[in-house]
């Protein structure tokens, strides 16, 4: 009797504690069973895939309103401009069948492609194109695109040829055009039922659960090879990983090195870069980060190499400013060395700034991005070495968008900024003093001047030099503690082929096919 009760108590305690491990334990079982299903199904699976993503899409799917990189990543498959970027960073004709640029670089002529059909069945006409350009110029949240469009002095329509004449040559004009998604005229439900011309059409969404795209049968070009793509939303990175590991997902991007090392199901793992500027973004408008010396001290205190070793076995690219290597000529790798790790120098700068004993601040980190969370944990430890106490506060993505990005209610945050279009302005426009997207409240007259000058500079080499000067200023003023462009590990199910990395934060689903 007594023994039984002892046993019962023990079992109860073990069961209670064990229930906490249940998720971990379940992984093994689920993994084993999914191996069986893949074996038995052979090659006869439906021509559709399930993709795991770590955040829900924006509430509004209107392409000129959506803001989050994660939304663009998905909607890239639904919308197209007259031209669209390819994986090499070139702009290829899309809704336009041909692009012609005049010798002086002032006139762009786009020939509208015959037989482009919207997802709702109507044919794309010149009216739709003009409507899209007008709507974009009037409503787009991307100031760099709006700026490029406002430099058009003359618009000319001849038959099916649309030509724009610019005030002055703009080497980024095509990138702006690529983000003017062509939408059907006077269609009011873009926010809830988006309609575009892309290889996939929107089917349905279930908030915080899934997002479904289907092949656009009437697509003009080669089109999608898959029939259906279901995005499943896992706002918890561990849950996302477990779903992948159990074999229920065909593709998950943005995995960490640790996750890759623990992946067991024979996925192909591809490595690229995320095309993000990850940094501890510091609110330049609040103390102590309104002090340039403090920000510089932070830069010296952080050892990015050690961080990369801890979080990603050394994978990832050091940045040093708001630009990542996929941009080629604009990227200046020497800036990554501008603040070599030097704890003593950091302490000296802190003392000079009036904080000899360091200070405390809060880093808000979106909890659904494990790489950012890991980075924050390492940063907090490194900052401790110079007397700065960083308290980490994990918040969910929507809170981040609203509170940190929207209300600028933060001291420091670890996130990555991507480029909405393949143009340096996409990364640099936000740091102009009065930009509404200048989350950190960075104010520097020289930056504003150089940036404005770069925009109107004709000569490509000269313009590149000016943009690079902008990057130098961000580095000199230590606007943020720039860390890295994260290594991007993508797990793809073994039979799925055709994955391509883009220089933008997008995944092109139309290229994927089953072997």
């Amino acid at each position, binding site marked *: 009797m007594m023994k039984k009760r002892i046993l019962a108590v023990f079992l109860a305690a073990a069961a209670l504690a064990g229930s906490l491990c249940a998720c971990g334990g379940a992984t093994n079982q689920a993994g084993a069973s999914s191996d069986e299903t893949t074996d038995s199904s052979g090659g006869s699976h439906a021509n559709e895939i399930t993709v795991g993503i770590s955040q829900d899409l924006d509430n509004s799917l209107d392409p000129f309103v959506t803001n989050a990189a994660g939304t663009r990543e998905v909607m890239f498959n639904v919308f197209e401009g007259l031209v669209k970027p390819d994986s090499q960073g070139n702009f290829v004709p899309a809704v336009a069948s041909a692009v012609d640029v005049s010798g002086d670089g002032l006139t762009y002529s786009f020939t509208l492609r015959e037989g482009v059909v919207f997802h709702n069945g109507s044919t794309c006409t010149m009216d739709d194109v003009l409507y899209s350009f007008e709507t974009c110029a009037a409503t787009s949240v991307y100031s760099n695109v709006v700026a490029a469009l406002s430099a058009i002095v003359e618009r000319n329509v001849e038959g099916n040829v649309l030509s724009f004449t610019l005030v002055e040559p703009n080497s980024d004009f095509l990138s702006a055009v690529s983000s003017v998604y062509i939408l059907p005229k006077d269609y009011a439900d873009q926010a809830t039922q988006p309609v575009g011309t892309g290889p996939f059409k929107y089917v349905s969404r279930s908030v915080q659960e899934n997002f479904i795209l289907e092949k656009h049968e009437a697509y003009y070009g080669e089109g999608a090879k898959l029939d259906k793509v279901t995005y499943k939303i896992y706002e918890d990175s561990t849950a996302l990983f477990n779903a992948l590991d159990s074999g229920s997902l065909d593709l998950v991007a943005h995995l960490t090195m640790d996750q890759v090392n623990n992946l067991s199901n024979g996925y192909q793992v591809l490595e690229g870069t995320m095309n993000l500027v990850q940094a501890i973004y510091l609110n330049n408008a609040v103390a102590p980060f309104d002090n340039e010396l403090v920000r510089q001290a932070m830069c010296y205190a952080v050892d990015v190499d050690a961080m990369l070793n801890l979080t990603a076995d050394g994978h990832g690219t050091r940045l040093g400013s708001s630009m990542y290597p996929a941009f080629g000529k604009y990227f200046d790798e020497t800036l990554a060395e501008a603040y070599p790790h030097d704890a003593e120098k950091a302490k000296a700068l802190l003392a000079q700034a009036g904080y000899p004993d360091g200070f405390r601040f809060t880093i808000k980190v979106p909890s659904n991005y494990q790489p950012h969370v890991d980075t924050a944990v390492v940063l907090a*430890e490194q900052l401790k070495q110079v007397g700065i106490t960083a308290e980490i506060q994990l918040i969910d993505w929507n809170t981040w968008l609203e509170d940190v990005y929207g209300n600028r209610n933060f001291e420091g945050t670890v996130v990555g900024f991507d480029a909405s279009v393949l143009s340096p302005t996409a990364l640099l426009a936000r740091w102009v003093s009065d930009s509404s997207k200048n989350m950190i409240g960075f104010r520097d007259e020289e930056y504003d001047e150089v940036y404005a000058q770069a925009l109107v500079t004709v000569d490509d080499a000269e313009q590149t030099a000016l943009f690079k000067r902008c990057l130098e200023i961000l580095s000199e003023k230590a606007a943020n503690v720039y860390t890295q462009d994260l290594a991007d590990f993508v797990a793809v199910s073994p039979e799925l082929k055709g994955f391509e990395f883009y220089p933008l934060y997008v995944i092109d689903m139309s290229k994927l096919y089953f072997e």
Partner: protein
Amino acid sequence: MKKKGNPFLYIGGALSAVMTALILLGYFWTPYDPTAMESKKFLPPSAEHLLGTDNFGRDIFSRVLEGAGTSFFIAVCVVLIGCVFGILIGSLCGYYGGLADLILTRICDSITAFPSILLALVIISVLGNGTYNIIIALGILFIPSFARIVRSEFARVRELNYIKSAKLMGVGTGRILFSHILPNTWPVLLSAITIGFNNAILSEASMSFLGLGIQPPEASLGSMLSDSQTYLKSAPWYALGTGCAIILLILGFSLLAEGLQRESKTV
């Protein structure tokens, strides 16, 4: 009748004592700094690192000590909040009865009607993350269970003759409540406290496991277990060490509670 030994009490007491001693030790000394990333990643258990190292090269044993300390601290505070408010509400309701009793009891019932984790999640999402908010959230949840027990005891005891005589002799209400009745509820209260303590540790672990508890790099047993999931295959010692710590802690106090209950029955 020959008095039997009470193995629950002995084993539970010993286990709890060892765990409590380790936790107290953890407040003052750990083999390594629990947040220092000095060693190699994922070292298996060895003489240098008793439970190995984690994904940042931090010593897991040190983190278990610190984490158990955090969990312990939270549990103690939660039980304290639950107990103090539970006794206040329960004693007044039980002693006076009436409409106020009816209303307060119904409120307590409605709180217990929600699954506790769900309600805690609601409170956390209103208050925000963090150690102290967890304590508040769980503390509120633990009030009804204490209030109920205390109320029923008070309602029972107030009808006993010695209370009636005390009233006749003109003893003040406060004195009757807290020096005459309360000590008599002690045996029941004691087992409620130990069980409540266990539940508090588990609740905290569940909350941190769900990512709503304490914030990294601070450790708690639940958050460590949550982190260890990803590395279950490559570093099983991470999950095992943490899981065992939870089991031992809970088991110790469960046995102790059982033992105390038996002890009070035999007396």
